[in-house]
């Protein structure tokens, strides 16, 4: 019991944030994330996943409930957005070191993370010369370089083509193997969640609540054609469909 609590890195208790007089946002969200875990958040569009992630990252405040981020020192959360959000006037390397007060002291750190994402040769390039996948990899290196205690990802690969997407999912897993980074990832893609995550929270409703929590115990890396994953997929799919049907009934009325 004690050791379990020591491992809790992120604790969210009855957190709510509501918009439009309580008709949107999320409410009563409770979960914990342990050190080194990868959590997936799935849910229908508009159920408050991005809002939840913004609250976790500190960009927005929750209306009620508590959020506690542990971990050593003052290191906060790192965020990877759906778009790379690179500074167009900085080189790839300077973008990776964007969070540092005097970047010139940390060149070797940048080099490490750039090689981790396979962009060593592009350290001097400008963002306008990168492909979408390369730009997103730069954003990943930038988030990692600050050594955040938890990495928050909001549909990080949804703007990429299927092949690049799979490559980056595997990259994320390689990074996890190497650094044991704790991650919370919002996604629309059930296969992505099943491939990458240790635990999946399924949200539904408006405002969104956690409808189910699914533990994926297969060790990573997983085969994309694993049959046990298919069973999970069907379950998640039916939960999402139910909540969607409920929503439609609601909006017709």
């Amino acid at each position, binding site marked *: 019991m004690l050791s379990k609590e020591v491992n809790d890195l992120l604790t969210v208790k009855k957190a709510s944030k509501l918009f439009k007089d309580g008709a949107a946002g999320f409410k009563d969200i409770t979960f914990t994330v342990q050190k080194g875990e990868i959590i997936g958040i799935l849910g229908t569009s508009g159920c408050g996943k991005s809002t939840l992630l913004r609250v976790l*990252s*500190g*960009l927005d405040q929750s209306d009620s409930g508590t959020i506690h981020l542990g971990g050593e020192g003052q290191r*906060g*959360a*790192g*965020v990877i*957005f759906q*778009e790379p*959000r690179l*500074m*167009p*006037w*900085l080189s790839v390397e300077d973008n990776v070191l*964007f*969070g540092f007060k005097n970047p010139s002291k940390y060149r070797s750190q940048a080099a490490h993370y750039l090689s981790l994402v396979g962009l060593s040769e592009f350290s001097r390039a*400008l*963002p*306008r010369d990168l492909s979408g996948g390369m730009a997103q990899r730069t954003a990943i290196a930038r988030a990692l370089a*600050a050594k955040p205690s938890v990495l928050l990802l909001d549909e990080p690969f949804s703007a990429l083509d299927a092949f690049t997407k799979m490559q980056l999912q595997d990259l994320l897993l390689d990074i996890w193997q190497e650094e044991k980074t704790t991650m919370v990832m919002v996604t629309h893609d059930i296969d992505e969640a099943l491939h990458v995550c240790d635990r999946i929270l399924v949200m539904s409703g408006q405002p969104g609540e956690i409808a189910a929590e699914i533990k994926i115990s297969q060790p990573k890396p997983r085969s994309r054609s694993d049959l046990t994953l298919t069973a999970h997929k069907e379950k998640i799919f039916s939960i999402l469909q139910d909540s969607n049907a409920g929503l439609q009934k609601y909006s017709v009325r």
Partner: protein
Amino acid sequence: MKNKLNLIGLGLILPVLLITIWEAAARFGLIESYLLPAPSTVVVSVVEMAQDGSLWTHVSITLYRVGAGFLIGTAAALLIGAAVGYFKQAERLLDPILQAFRSIPSLAWVPLFLLWMGIGEPSKVTLIAVGVFFPVYLNIVSGIQGVDRKLIEVGKVYNFNSLQLVRRIILPASLPSFLVGIRSGLGLGWMFVVAAELLGASEGLGYLLVLGQNTSSPELIIASIILFAGLGKGTDSLLKGIESRSLRWQDNLQNAK
């Protein structure tokens, strides 16, 4: 490269033709020389002024006035524009009154400045600074307000304070619009230096215009106009050079070769 030469060559055809016709018309007495002297006469008068040193006096005092007015106007616009663009309260406080001042045609200030500061340098420099201020101010404010909120959020994730946000995201992101502002500010600076020197000066290119009118020497007027054009174009090219060097990162048509 060859293409570029072609482009310049094409642009030169009309001016060269025009000057030739003008010279010929003046030589054959088709236009009265007391109205429009031949281009060669204009060149001669410029060379004469260069030889007796008066050219340098006039050019340098005019450059000084534009330079001083431009620097003061730009600095004021940078400070006030940054505050107005960044702080909502500063915008509510300052923007209405600045917009009101902006609607005053700047030349209407001339009598007041002359009354307050006399006919010397301060009134001229102030007038030019006022002219430079507004385009720079407007561009800085719109530049800062147009900075992508998504980029600012990246800084917030790293817990940047306001100063860091301004220095590391907002200023570089609004640089393009700032540079557009100072280029049009400089253009207005040149316009206002003419006004200031026409209205009372004993030196400067604008004074040459008055002198040329009073002594019926059109070659002085034309020489002065040409010098204004050359200096204006030269200083603008300087800014343009700075602009394209510092905006190499921009992903736009100009950078697509």
